[in-house]
């Protein structure tokens, strides 16, 4: 049975988005509670945001690669149907 690739893709992306938002919320909460100075907060915020930017870029590349993979699978399936006796 073929794997439901689009379902896996979008479910994973949704979980990643929710998790990342919760991580950022928790970081902001922690920074406020730690009563750090403004400049320090800016640096801590940057540390938290850098991985998010990288992750977004990787997810865009994943979407592209996933589309290409799905198209390839469909073409292979069609080719095997037409070559069947």
């Amino acid at each position, binding site marked *: 049975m073929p*794997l439901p*690739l*689009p379902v*896996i*893709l979008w*479910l*994973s*992306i949704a*979980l*990643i988005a*929710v*998790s*990342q938002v*919760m*991580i950022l919320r*928790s*970081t902001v*909460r*922690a920074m406020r*509670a*730690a009563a750090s100075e403004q400049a320090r907060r800016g*640096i*801590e915020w940057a*540390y*938290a945001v*850098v*991985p998010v930017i990288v*992750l977004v870029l*990787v997810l865009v*590349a*994943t979407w592209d*690669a*996933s589309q*290409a*993979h799905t198209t*390839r*699978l469909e073409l292979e399936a069609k080719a095997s149907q037409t070559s069947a006796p």
Partner: protein
Amino acid sequence: MTAPAAALREPSLARDLIALTKPRIISLLLLTTLAPMFVAGSPSWATILWTGIGGYLMAGGANAVNMYLDRDIDHVMARTRLRPIPSGRMAARAVLAFGIAIATAATWLLGHFVNVLTAALALAGFYFYVFVYTRWLKRTTPQNIVLGGAAGAFPPLVGWAAVTGRVDLASIYLFLIIFYWTPPHFWALALLKQRDYGKAGVPMAPNIWGEHETIDQMLWYTLLLLALSILPVTFGVFGAFYLVSALVLGSILLRGVWIIRSLAAKGESWIPDAWKVYKYSLLYLALLFVAMAVDRHL
């Protein structure tokens, strides 16, 4: 203890030099270097051998230089006070020279016997660990091991490049899996060693943010890791065997962190469960990488 057994535990220069490389930690780094080689293709025995030796020496060199840079705090923490420098068995400069020497040897071995990209990536991992993590992040931010986790995530890139001569999306995923595995893994230990880190002045998340916020983030990082670990399936790198393995292994880790969170919320002791999560997280990473290699050859 019998005389031969006692002799085996006697400190010696050879034993100290091996201890400087942190061989137990390196065994997991080596697994995450070698398993991706079998995901990337069918490496020759020579490539496996040279990548393994080069990887060990580079990581060992980074660990030795780390011990040199942390010599002022290692004697404070129970976990590190028996290391060769704080215990007085080795001079600090000798440790630094040893670390640089074996890292240099690793760069040459990888560049000469594997390829230049592999050597460059391994060296980048060395520099990241020594300068970005140890010198910059470790003592300045509670997010030290979040960004610093990238240092431990270089091995899959090294293994992948050794076989393919390039870095692509699949190898970046292997990097990210280790990157996002590091916070729940390391914070489980940091929760248990709060007093040690506090004495040494290292701003670990539990000491600065508190236990509740750290455990909360462990949970979200674990969920993110679980979702991220199954994404390579969507573009055909792995199949059903890996998908099921990643879901099962990740769910066990998630359950462990959830138990810590529930106990902490109820004000009950979570210490034994933090130990379990710390130990299981090591097994999780090892089994996940084994599952990757197995899946590619099914």
